[in-house]
């Protein structure tokens, strides 16, 4: 963590590209069924982008395209390009493991491994041999601190992660994703399974994390989108209808469809 941070502070704009995530005319289909149409979007490094839109409009599909999670599905097809942290996501020469290390993902339901808290956070660093073995405890502590979980779990790192509350588990999953020192953090409705207090903690955390990471968060909660994000993209039926500064979207949307959605007239 510190190394990356130091790099960035020493040479802002050189080691980390200003545009952290970019899609160009990206389309995606599950078999014969097209789900995303011609998506073009640019996300600045160290910003939070909220993605909103009615269920089934392709928000998850977009997120899962960025780290190529949809590769698991047979028959999936795409067109166009996505670039993350200087890599062309779908380029045959792009190494999936490297890509996924750069792109952390947090899922809708917390999915900690049934291992200890420590082993959960250490999973990425161990797997990818990012640091020498003896430095792993240090990395684990850093990640847990960044995920605002350290104080709650520091005395029980060897306890099962499954014993944590839902909110703690979700922050643990964030800490686990941070273990890989990613450029981009994708969050697919990270609070939809959490209570309001746990949700608030995650929102505060996102606010902290954007100092270092580029965050994309899918949410169904308009207030949440308004609170945490700099930019907001509105998806509808597989198309990016509007993408603008969050304040703009929520105060003066340009499309009536966007307005109808954020004022709760559909979706």
């Amino acid at each position, binding site marked *: 963590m510190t190394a990356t941070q130091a790099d960035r502070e020493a040479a802002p704009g050189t080691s980390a590209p200003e545009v952290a995530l970019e899609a160009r005319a990206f389309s995606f289909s599950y078999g014969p069924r097209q789900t995303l149409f011609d998506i073009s979007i640019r996300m600045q490094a160290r910003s939070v982008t909220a993605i909103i839109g009615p269920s089934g409009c392709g928000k998850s599909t977009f997120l899962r395209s960025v780290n190529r*999670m949809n590769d*698991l599905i*047979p028959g999936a097809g795409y067109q166009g390009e996505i670039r993350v942290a200087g890599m062309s996501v779908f380029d045959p020469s792009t190494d999936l493991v490297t890509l996924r290390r750069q792109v952390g993902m947090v899922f809708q339901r917390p999915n900690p491994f049934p291992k200890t808290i420590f082993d959960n956070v250490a999973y990425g660093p161990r797997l990818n041999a990012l640091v020498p073995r003896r430095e792993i405890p240090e990395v684990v502590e850093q990640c847990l601190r960044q995920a605002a979980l350290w104080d709650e779990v520091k005395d029980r790192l060897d306890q099962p992660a*499954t014993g944590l509350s839902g909110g703690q588990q979700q922050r643990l999953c964030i800490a686990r994703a941070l273990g890989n020192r990613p450029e981009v953090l994708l969050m697919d409705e990270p609070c939809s399974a959490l209570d309001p207090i746990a949700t608030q903690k995650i929102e505060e955390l996102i606010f902290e994390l954007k100092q270092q990471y580029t965050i994309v968060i899918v949410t169904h909660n308009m207030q949440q989108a308004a609170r945490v994000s700099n930019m907001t993209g509105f998806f509808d039926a597989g198309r990016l209808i509007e993408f603008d500064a969050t304040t703009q979207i929520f105060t003066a949307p340009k499309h009536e469809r966007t307005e109808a959605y954020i004022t709760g007239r559909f979706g």
Partner: protein
Amino acid sequence: MTAGEPAITEEPGAAVLQGRAVGDTVFKAALTIAVLAVPALLGFLVWELWVGSRLAIERYGFDFITGTTWDPVAEEFGALPLIVGTLTSAAVALVIAVPLSLGVAIYLTEFSPKWLRQPVAFVIELLAAIPSVVYGLWGIFVLIPVLKDHVFPFLRDTLGFLPLFQGPIYGNSMLAAGIILAIMVMPYIMSVSREVLMAVPASQREAALGLGATRWEAAWTAVVPYARSGIVGAVILGLGRALGETMAVTMLIGNRHEIAASLFAPGYTMAAVIANEFTEAASDIHYAALSYVALSLFVVTVIVNGLARILIWRVSRGQAGGGQGV
């Protein structure tokens, strides 16, 4: 019509309720009987074995378990070679069957093309339906010749520095019995582990893949550990089968009362000796000795299963919560 309605709905309602209450009672009684019948049956079984082996227990006591001679004519009975034979053949079976079945299960759930999964699983499960005497015959006519002419000599040449693979090769042997047992328990271990692995939530795989694991790493570091206690359960199921299997073992093991270091040497198991000698037992003490063997088999099975339960319990505690497959 309208006037009659309340009465109609009330009265049958009450009757139905009463009927349901009666049904409840009957159901509960039936279940209680069924539940009590199982331990009662088990108790009765043990009691019968105990009574049957009384003569031998009084005469030989604990020496029966440690003795190595089995001579019905001289009325000398020691069951140690049988106990060792049962445990060894089961151990050989597991050593062969566990990695193979686990490998197949992991391959089928994580790697194989979808269309291949069902047919392969079906064929493997079909193996469980073959009667054990058929395995025995197949063992005698197909397996043993191959083992004797090719596999055993090869093992002796390559691993001959181990006492396990030394000495003369007869064909019928502990190793042959272990191999046939392995084939017989594989379907059980494979199909149960496959089910346990399939039950691992997709979110666990995705978590691992999302952190940069390859498919193989995700299978090995996330999916299998999640299913660990279920897999141990599958192995125990296989172990139970291996300990009690009789017919095919009798046909292949060589039926010799002897503890040999080499797996090429013939041996005997508790189940096999009972099957072979019970119908021909000439004296009361011989019957009693065979009952005593049955009792010992029961005790060994209980102990092994008990140890296995403890293992499951420790494994599932070690993996910290999740994935209680069994």
